[in-house]
């Protein structure tokens, strides 16, 4: 506490330079160790048996034959896990999602798990487990799940005292929307649907669990939050938190999907039962069926405006599915829907709806892209109706400092206006379009979070610096954090190495979500470095035998101030470190902080598409991302976040979707039919970083990771409407949907 988190305007020496990342060499040589790359002596192979049905009572699980198979060392079902029924609902849901208790709630829901001496034996054992199911009616569509006669997914969910699939209704807004619509010259009302998508990280979930008979354990795992995994796993399995050491592997992508546990508690339980290490790696098929994709949605958007372009009222009725367990996804949609605009009268309602699909998890700015698709598509329609350019219409209504956000509070300084002005000036907006091509733009918002953070900075006897952090590195943050420490200490970047500590070597760190990695660990690193500078000054003072107040630290050296000390040559970090033993011992800096205020973030995207009017096929011709990043510590990796988010949004807009059959089973459980964009699908993605400093970070850093996935759905929808003359209201805008819209428009 007591650290000044306010932004201080300053000239940076190396912040903002494009240095090489420290983990680069391991990652280009194949040496980097990811979740599935670990090995422990005597390790077993873990495998999970999953429900082939969308909804069924599990009447009996007969493991007798499987148990007898040579090489099988442990089999677990829900009976081997604690029954949390009636205790903390959140933990119960997590556990029952990891392993079905009594009822399989979705196709792919785990019902049993096996540990065996090798892959072949484990697979064989799964086949020998006989599960007797009694099929129940299922529902996978969000609108159908809200109908009065829909099959009920969870008994504890009630609306007006009656069983329901509506797990939550969240209302936001202010003003009087009825009065606002009455004032409007133009009102546009439109319904939209978006299909379920998956984060699509290339690395499947993988872990290596090792629980000893004394109740201590280790977990090596690919995760966005090893500290949170420790909390959840130890709670679920009744282990002492301090006795469970969780180490995060290199992470092969997460995007929110690795913020939750899926098979890790099962691996620990298997290891405990078998008394041997268990490696459990999900197949791609399992990742699609049984990790945490995003919601499919159904929405009604209504916007009214005056002829001069002033929006008088806006509403959004949002229905988001949560999968089989309650979540907050509809609520987040309702909070973010109109966050870009300055509205006098606004009301949004988010429904969280249960269906027979996997438990929804966060996916990059969770819930915001869908609501933005509805709102930003309707914004274009209103602009067209009143004869204003969609860009000017947005500029006129953009939120600014002092605007009451549609989700409640009043904004401080924010960046939506500057991104829109940048769109106006961007050469992309003036580029000529050819036949069958169209241009669209859209805006997006995300909150960004900070959270509990803790770092250690240790100075080695040779004066090199090691920073240990507890947030994981999804996209180059170790480079950014080394830059921050080097900047603070005034030393070369190469002299700093950032490592990720395990749960035994640092205090609790919140999960790396909400675009918080560089923001919050960066803040803690600054304070830890300043802490270390204090120690370095003390040590220099001791070496010189002068008062510490006469020592200043600048440009990587301690200098004695004052005429009395003019004969003292400056002491380098290495020189002070070399004498550490005789001046008080190891030199270190520490910081523990709750890094709130990551700063809300806004982006505006411009997109050109070409639509083949005979096949409905859409090609992205040009794409530009403009986003407020606050200070960009390492511009390459800021651009990388912008480009990656945009690419995910493009995939979502055009092709990606979960396809469920009438039997409630997921039909596309691989990368062949769940189509994430390939290299030849995309153009170069232009980026423009706006650096509007975050007033609540010493360097002005904001979260940057998520917002860029928000605008693409609508930007592409708006571009398609200009290219093909049809307004698409169903995501993905696949070729068959576009061709049908074109044909329907002709008829």
């Amino acid at each position, binding site marked *: 506490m007591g650290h000044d988190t306010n932004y201080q305007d300053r000239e940076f020496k190396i912040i903002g330079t494009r240095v090489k990342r420290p983990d680069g*060499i391991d990652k280009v040589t194949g040496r980097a160790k990811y979740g599935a790359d670990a090995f422990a002596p005597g390790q077993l192979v873990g495998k999970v048996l999953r429900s082939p049905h969308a909804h069924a009572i599990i009447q009996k699980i007969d493991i007798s034959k499987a148990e007898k198979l040579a090489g099988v060392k442990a089999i677990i079902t829900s009976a081997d896990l604690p029954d949390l029924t009636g205790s903390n609902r959140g933990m119960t849901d997590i556990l029952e999602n990891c392993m079905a208790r009594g009822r399989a709630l979705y196709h792919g829901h785990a019902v049993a798990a096996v540990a065996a001496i090798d892959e072949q034996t484990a697979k064989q054992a799964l086949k020998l487990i006989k599960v007797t199911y009694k099929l129940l009616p299922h529902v996978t569509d969000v609108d159908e799940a809200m109908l009065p006669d829909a099959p009920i997914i969870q008994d504890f969910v009630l609306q007006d005292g009656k069983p329901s699939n509506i797990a939550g209704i969240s209302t936001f807004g202010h003003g009087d929307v009825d009065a606002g619509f009455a004032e409007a010259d133009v009102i546009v009302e439109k319904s939209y649907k978006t299909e379920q998508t998956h984060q699509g990280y290339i690395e499947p979930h993988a872990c290596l669990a090792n629980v000893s008979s004394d109740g201590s354990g280790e977990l090596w795992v690919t995760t966005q939050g090893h500290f949170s995994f420790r909390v959840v796993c130890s709670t679920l399995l009744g282990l002492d938190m301090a006795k469970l050491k969780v180490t995060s592997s290199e992470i092969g992508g997460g995007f929110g999907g690795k913020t939750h546990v899926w098979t890790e508690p099962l691996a620990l339980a298997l290891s405990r039962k078998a008394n041997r290490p268990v490696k459990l790696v999900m197949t791609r098929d399992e990742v699609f069926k049984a990790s945490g994709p995003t919601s499919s949605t159904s929405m009604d958007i209504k916007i009214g405006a005056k002829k001069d372009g002033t929006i008088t009222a806006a509403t959004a009725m949002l229905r988001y599915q949560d999968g089989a367990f309650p979540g907050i996804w509809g609520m987040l949609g309702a909070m973010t829907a109109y966050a870009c605009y300055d509205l006098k009268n606004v009301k949004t309602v988010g429904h969280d709806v249960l269906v027979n699909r996997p438990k929804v998890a966060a996916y990059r700015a969770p819930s915001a892209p869908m609501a933005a698709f509805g709102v930003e598509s309707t914004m274009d329609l209103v602009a067209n109706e009143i004869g204003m350019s969609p860009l000017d219409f947005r500029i006129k209504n953009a939120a600014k400092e002092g605007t009451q956000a549609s989700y409640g509070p009043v904004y401080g300084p924010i960046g939506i206006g500057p991104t829109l002005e940048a769109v106006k000036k961007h050469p992309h907006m003036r580029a000529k379009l050819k036949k069958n091509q169209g241009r669209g733009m859209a805006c997006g918002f995300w909150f960004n979070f900070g959270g509990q953070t803790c770092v250690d900075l240790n100075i080695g006897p040779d004066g090199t610096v090691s920073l240990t952090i507890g947030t994981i590195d999804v996209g180059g943050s170790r480079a950014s954090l080394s830059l921050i420490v080097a900047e603070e200490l005034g030393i070369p970047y190469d002299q700093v190495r950032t490592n990720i500590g395990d749960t035994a070597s640092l205090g609790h760190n919140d999960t790396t979500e909400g675009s918080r990695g560089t923001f919050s660990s960066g803040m803690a690193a600054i304070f830890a470095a300043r802490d270390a500078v204090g120690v370095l000054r003390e040590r220099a003072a001791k070496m010189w035998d002068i008062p510490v107040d006469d020592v200043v630290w600048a440009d990587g050296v301690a200098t004695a101030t004052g005429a009395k000390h003019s004969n003292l040559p400056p002491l380098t970090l290495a020189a002070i470190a070399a004498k550490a033993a005789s001046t008080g011992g190891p030199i270190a800096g520490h910081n523990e902080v709750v890094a709130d205020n990551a700063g809300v973030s806004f982006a505006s995207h411009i997109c050109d598409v070409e639509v083949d009017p005979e096949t409905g096929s859409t090609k992205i011709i040009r794409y530009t991302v403009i986003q407020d990043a606050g200070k960009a510590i390492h511009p390459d990796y800021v651009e990388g976040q912008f480009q990656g988010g945009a690419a995910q949004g493009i995939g979502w807009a055009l092709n990606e979707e979960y396809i469920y059959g009438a039997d409630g089973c997921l039909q596309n459980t691989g990368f062949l039919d769940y189509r994430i964009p390939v290299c*030849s699908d995309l153009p170069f993605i232009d980026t423009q970083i706006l650096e509007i400093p975050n007033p609540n970070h010493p360097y002005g850093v904001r979260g940057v990771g998520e917002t860029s996935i928000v605008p693409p759905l609508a930007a592409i929808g708006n571009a398609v409407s200009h290219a093909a003359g049809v307004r698409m209201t169903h995501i993905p805008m696949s070729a068959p949907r576009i061709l049908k819209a074109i044909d329907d428009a002709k008829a």
Partner: protein
Amino acid sequence: MTGVLVSTTINGDAVQFACPTDETLLDSLRNRVGLTGAKEGCGTGDCGACSVTLDGRLVCACLVLGVEANGREIGTVEGLVEDGKLHPLQEKFIEHAALQCGICTPGFLVAAKTLLEKNPKPSEEQIRYALAGNLCRCTGYDKIVRAVQAAAKEMRKK
């Protein structure tokens, strides 16, 4: 389960391993030879994270049986470094920030190396199509394509 002994050449070294006949080359490389650079992203040939070369041809190691390697030459990402020096593609991937999480990187490097050996001066479009079998979810491919272009230029200088 039937096991066989396989004698093969990996990155120029003679290697022997025993494996079940139905095991994939990817599993043999990772679990028996200890080369974990090739990754399993899908196991069905759809992501390219396990790209290796088999007698010089680019393949997905998950779609080759371990036994098929007998008497043949395998190249993996671990073989890209020569005489302790990074391959220009490896240099440029780091320099151009062409990786974020890095899980797809080994596959991209092996695929890009195969491309540049066949076509030292590929167009942007040729690069994009040649790398279409390698999925990346972090970068939007932008910096990957630029890194391959830069490496090609660098290699032409030599």
